[in-house]
């Protein structure tokens, strides 16, 4: 039995009848004796294990199960009602029919006309508004949404942090060997460092540190300028030497600023003033 034949037999997977299969048993004995085949299968198993640990087990949102069961319960009710109706004489069903009373018909027409007017006005407003403002805002909007999306999706990961530590020096040293820029983690007042992770935004490696402020998570992002295309317009405040952009998305506030050629972003469910305060008073 050649090595290739052995690998083909064993890669084909197991069936409950395999314990009877002489060919399979021979193949398994071969792997025990053959260094190359042994290495081949060890590497396959190793790769599977690496995939399993590297690829995050995505947890469903908290309301997911409830929503699904509610939908099934609703479907169950509908099918009971339908089953009940099918038993009733059809004459009464025909009498109900699909006639819409006259008053309802008039109200419906008014609603349709009003909705059409609103749509036309909205489209006109969109076309008339200055383009440049929209385009600039959209770059910042995209940046904000990207950071918020990462902040929110990370919270539902099984392992949200690569390194759990409250030691700034340890975390900075951990980042130092993993990104191609110098990492100096801000120390926002009255917060507790929880740990950090590396993430990928815009194809670039991004430093992400998690803090707690009054038990509310705050995620800090540090990245090279090339990771996020930014255009400084919109809600900008200059506080001290920092020019800061603020916005929000999906219930989170975001503050972005640039410092020494790096982009910093703070994302949290904390209020805007609190978050700007953290960004301003970080040492």
């Amino acid at each position, binding site marked *: 039995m050649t090595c*290739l*034949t052995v*690998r*083909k037999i064993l*890669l*084909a*997977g*197991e*069936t409950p009848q395999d314990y009877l299969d002489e060919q399979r048993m021979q193949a398994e004995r071969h792997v025990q004796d053959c260094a*190359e085949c042994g*290495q*081949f299968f060890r*590497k*396959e198993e*190793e*790769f*599977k294990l*690496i*995939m*399993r640990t*590297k*690829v*995050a*087990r*995505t*947890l*469903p*949102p908290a309301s*997911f*199960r409830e*929503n*699904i*069961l509610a*939908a*099934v319960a609703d*479907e*169950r009710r509908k*099918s009971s009602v339908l089953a009940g109706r099918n038993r009733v004489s059809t004459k009464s069903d025909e009498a109900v029919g699909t006639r819409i009373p006259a008053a309802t018909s008039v109200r419906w027409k008014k609603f349709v006309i009003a909705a059409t007017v609103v749509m036309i006005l909205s489209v006109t407003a969109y076309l008339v508004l200055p383009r440049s403002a929209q385009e600039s805002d959209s770059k910042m909007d995209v940046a904000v949404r990207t950071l918020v999306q990462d902040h929110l*999706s990370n919270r539902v990961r099984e392992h949200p942090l690569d390194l759990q530590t409250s030691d700034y020096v340890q975390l900075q040293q951990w980042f130092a060997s*993993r990104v191609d820029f110098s990492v100096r983690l801000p120390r926002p007042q009255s917060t507790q460092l929880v740990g950090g992770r*590396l*993430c*990928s935004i815009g194809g670039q*490696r991004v430093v992400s540190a998690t803090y707690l402020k009054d038990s509310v998570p705050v995620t800090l992002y540090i990245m090279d300028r090339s990771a996020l295309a930014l255009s400084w317009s919109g809600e900008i405040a200059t506080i001290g030497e920092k020019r800061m952009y603020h916005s929000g998305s999906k219930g989170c506030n975001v503050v972005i600023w640039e410092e020494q050629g790096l982009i910093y972003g703070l994302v949290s469910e904390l209020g805007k003033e609190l978050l700007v305060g953290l960004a301003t008073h970080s040492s």
Partner: protein
Amino acid sequence: MAPERRSELRLVPASKPIDRPRFEDVLVEHLDSLYRTAVRLTRHREVAEDLVQETCLRAFRAYDQLEHPGSARSWLFKILLNIFRNDAKQQKTEFVDLELSEALIASSPLCEYDQHVVFDRLLEDEVEKALESLPDEFRIPIILSDLEDWTMAEIAEVLGRPSGTVASRLFRGRQLLRESLESYARRRGLF
């Protein structure tokens, strides 16, 4: 002639419905796994939620047709994959039946480097992107086998394909994934 033996006449009992568990009790056991797989397939959480909901509703309507409640997992996943594949926006997954061949195995060089050293330093995001970039015909078997721990036979049943085809897709998929991750690792200077 011997008298008719009434005791030998067996009355055939009226067929009674299979004593099956409540649909919701069967479903909750597999919800998390359905969601995880749906996210991997659709690459979008909200779309995945919709996909799972549609799966559950169709399964509920067809629950009476499930012959063996014990095989609910593969039945639910078959429905999930059928909806996913039939979605007009998705590229149809071409599962051409192709047995695992020695030529395919021979084409894969023996991995000489320490995979832990090289791949452990890759980001989760990078590994996920590499997985997402695989064509569905390779990605789906990897999701079911390597991430959800299904056996080859179970995957073959869910996909409605011979085990040989699944083995071939799995092997080739891992090969492509490894090449993709090696490429990421080289760009990062990891080896």
